[in-house]
C-alpha cells in the first residue's frame, strides 16, 4: 500500500515525465479511503502542469505566428486588391485581362 503523500509524489513524477498511464497503477495501490483526495489532488496537479505548459506554448505560438506572417502575409492578396490601392497589381491585372480578352473589346 502507498501513502497518499508518496502517491502524489509518484504521480507528479509521471506527469512531469509525460507518462500518460501513470494514474491507474497508483490508484490501485492506495487505500480506498484516500482515493477521493488523491483524485482531487491529481486533477490539481494536471491543471497546474497544463497551465505551465500553456505559458510555454504562448512563446511557441509567437514563433509560429511570426513564421506564418513571413511566409504568407507578405504575399500579395487577390481578395480586394482594388480596395487595397495596389496600383501595380491593378495595372498587371488589367494588362492580363486585356491581353486575354482583347478580341471582345473590339
Amino acid at each position: 500500500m502507498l501513502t497518499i503523500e508518496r502517491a502524489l509524489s509518484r504521480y507528479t513524477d509521471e506527469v512531469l515525465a509525460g507518462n500518460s498511464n501513470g494514474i491507474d497503477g497508483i490508484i490501485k495501490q492506495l487505500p480506498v479511503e484516500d482515493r477521493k483526495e488523491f483524485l482531487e489532488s491529481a486533477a490539481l496537479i494536471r491543471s497546474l502542469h497544463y497551465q505551465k505548459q500553456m505559458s510555454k506554448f504562448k512563446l511557441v505560438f509567437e514563433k509560429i505566428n511570426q513564421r506564418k506572417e513571413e511566409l504568407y502575409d507578405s504575399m500579395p492578396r487577390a481578395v480586394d486588391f482594388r480596395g487595397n490601392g495596389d496600383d501595380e497589381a491593378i495595372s498587371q491585372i488589367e494588362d492580363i485581362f486585356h491581353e486575354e480578352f482583347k478580341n471582345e473589346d473590339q
Partner: protein
Amino acid sequence: MSKMVHFEDWKLVHSYLTGDTESGRKLYENTYEALLCFVRKQCKGAAFSAVDCEEIVCETMVRSVERLDSFNGESSFYTFLCGIAKNVTKEFLKKKSREIPADFEAPAEEDTGVDLTAYLPEYGILPEDYVIRKEDIERVFGAFKQLQSERPEYYDIIQLRLLNGVSYATIAQISGESIEALESRYRRALSAIKKILKK
C-alpha cells in the same frame, strides 16, 4: 479520390491562413500536449531532456507553417505534425551525435486520425467529477498564486517540485528537510488550493 475527414482541422488551418490568428492558436494549442507526449515517446532511450523534447516540438510546429497550405484534412492536424516531428527528431539525434534508437519507428498507418486522448488516457479514466475543465484551469492557477502571500511555504513547494521539476532529493539537500516532510507539505499545499477553490 482523396477524402477530407478532418474538416474541423482543415477549417482552422484555412481560417488561420486567411488572417484569423485565434484559429491558429486553437489549432496548435489543441495538439501541443499530445505532440509533446508523442515526441517524448519517440525519444525514449535517446537520453533527451525535457527541454530537448520541448525544443523539438517548437521546431516541428514552426516548420509545419511552411506546409500549412498543403494540409488537406485527409489526416488529422496532429498526425500531420507527427510526420514532421519524426524528421525533426532524427535531425536532433544526428546533431547530438547519438544513435537513433532501435525502436524508433514512424507511426503505423492505422495511427492516422488517432484520438488525441489516446495519448492522454489519464483524462479519460478519471470520474467526471474529478476532471477539471479547461476553463477552470486559470481559476486553479489563481488559487495557487494566492498561496504566495497566504502560505509562501506551500507556494514554494509546488513551484519547485511541480512547476520547476526539481526533485525532492535536491530540495531536501538545499533546505535540510527530510523528503517525507517535503512530501507531506506538498500534499497540504494541494489541499490548501482545494480550500481556496471551495470558498
